């Protein structure tokens, strides 16, 4: 009986069959999910536009110019001007900043809160779960408009660094129950598994089990929800501003550009609404594409 042959490293080039090249993580993502990558590209462009808005915009978004009111798109104003003569393109670029900030912050706040409550609900179960479910049910069945109006009305406007914190809260609240549901069902699936019982029997503390076993498994749905909800937040902010409950004049925000005086004049000056609407659609579109690809990548089986 001879000793087993020693393991020898063999160069890939010497192998008699073809081995597919292993590309980097990012490259893999781009090739398997071209649409998602495109979405990511748009998102990055938006973020850059938001950060460098002052440098990139041709005009000051607040600069009123009575000489050029409702001007058609031209060489001076690529996308035309609005009722006050303000450059539409500049307002769209600055609007990206508002949209992203409001979108990210609301989504992050809402999702994190929802996830935390969802994990707690899934883990503790029983009466705590029932109570939390009822609370979330109440929240989710409350019409968004009333909720937003109430928050804005009761808390007023709390502007910090040019951003209305209370609007962010108003937009975040309806997200909480939605994230809660998804995270809870993921968490539930884990909880039912045998190894959690084993961990409890072994005497591991609640927090250890939650953080080491349950939480990692809900990270995927959480990330997916955050991305999807940024899109929702942008849409929501647009709707609220359209109804006059969101950002107000003279801030540059896409939803705001579609409401107010725009509503009276858009049939004569359609560029005033076409471009901001396209901006909203493009942003939400990009986030949705990216979110979809993210979901395919991380957890194709998830039911949202």
């Amino acid at each position, binding site marked *: 009986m001879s000793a087993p042959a020693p393991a020898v490293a063999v160069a890939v080039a010497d192998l008699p069959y073809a081995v597919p090249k292993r590309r980097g993580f990012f490259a893999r993502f781009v090739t398997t999910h071209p649409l998602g990558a495109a979405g990511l590209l748009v998102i990055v462009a938006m973020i850059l536009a938001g950060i460098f808005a002052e440098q990139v915009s041709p005009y000051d978004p607040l600069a009123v110019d009575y000489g050029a009111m409702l001007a058609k798109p031209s060489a001076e104003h690529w996308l035309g001007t609005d009722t006050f003569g303000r450059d539409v393109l500049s307002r769209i670029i600055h609007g990206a900043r508002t949209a992203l900030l409001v979108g990210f912050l609301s989504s992050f706040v809402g999702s994190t809160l929802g996830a935390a409550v969802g994990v707690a609900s899934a883990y503790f179960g029983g009466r705590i779960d029932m109570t939390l*479910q009822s609370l979330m049910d109440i929240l989710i*069945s*409350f*019409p968004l408009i009333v909720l937003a109006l109430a928050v804005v009305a009761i808390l007023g406007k709390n502007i910090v660094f040019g951003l209305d914190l209370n609007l962010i809260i108003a937009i975040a609240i309806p997200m909480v129950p939605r994230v809660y549901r998804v995270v809870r069902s993921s968490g539930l699936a884990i909880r039912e598994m045998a190894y959690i019982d084993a961990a409890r029997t072994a005497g591991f503390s609640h927090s250890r089990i939650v953080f080491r076993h349950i939480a990692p498994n809900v990270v995927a749905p959480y990330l997916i929800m955050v991305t999807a909800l940024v899109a929702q937040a942008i849409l929501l902010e647009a709707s609220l501003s359209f109804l006059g409950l969101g950002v107000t004049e003279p801030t540059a925000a896409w939803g705001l550009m579609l409401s107010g005086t725009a509503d009276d004049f858009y049939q004569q000056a359609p560029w005033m*609404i076409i471009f901001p*609407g396209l901006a909203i*659609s493009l942003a939400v579109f990009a986030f949705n594409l990216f979110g979809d690809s993210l979901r395919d990548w991380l957890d194709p089986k998830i039911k949202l």
Partner: protein
Amino acid sequence: MLRYTVQRLLMMIPTLFGVAVLVFVMLRVMPGDIVELRLRAEGAQVTPEILAMERARLGLDKPMLAQFFDWMGGLLTGDFGISMWTGRPVAHEIAIRLELSLELAILATILATLIALPLGTLAALFKDRWPDRVISVFAIAGLAVPSFWFGMIIILVLLWNLNWIPPLTFTPLLEDPVKNLSQLIWPALAVGYRYSAVATRMTRSTILEVLQEDYIRTARAKGVFERLVVARHAMRNAMLPVVTVIGLEFAFLIGGLVVTEQVFNLNGIGKLFVNVLARGDYTMIQALVMLVAAFFIFVNFVVDLLYAVLDPRIRYG
């Protein structure tokens, strides 16, 4: 299963109650009241006595708890009270506008379903090939486009090409069905696009799942025509989740209705909602919120039941 059903049914009651308390308190905590708005907003010289008198007439001077019990008592006997702005019964104000919104919602649903089912199936059948890509883009765009903006664009397009403007008053369905449908088709489209997008995606993913199931594979192996496979086996099973999603999204239509009715100038529940909110008409707002919430909760209940039937992991003893 029965226990779960009963549990969920019973949970509906405290949820509804919670909504009632929440809306009631929120309204009264918010600054500004309808009396000031109604009498003062046009600049008339109103003395504090007049304001106090109006408040007393509307019952706004009673302690909050008393007002709440008055309202709750009325609800239980089916009396929604009277509108604080017009003095007409709340039920009447809602009823005359409900027909239009319901019709719009149903029309949007029909449109959405008619678009979603064939498109979703097509996308599933041609997965990753160009029809799928095109349809997916169409669907994702539907989720991205703000419905009110889409409505404005529709109006613009119709204005330019057909010289069409949204009609002043809408002909009721029973009076002239053809005219009514021709008027409502456009707002239904505006609201329905988003709806169809969600349904299309759902149809696509469920059919994909079903198409991978073993028995479908067997059927295919037996040489049955692919189309037949889809038609007979896949569709039947895919229907349930799709119907579920269509049902759920119907509840979300309310949001779309509010903005679309503004854009198309429809005298429906959505527009009523915006108006009564602006006026601070407590009784109307409370009634509308309860209506919407009850609807939501009921639809959620039905959906939860269906999910429990489908996925045993969700239901627990």
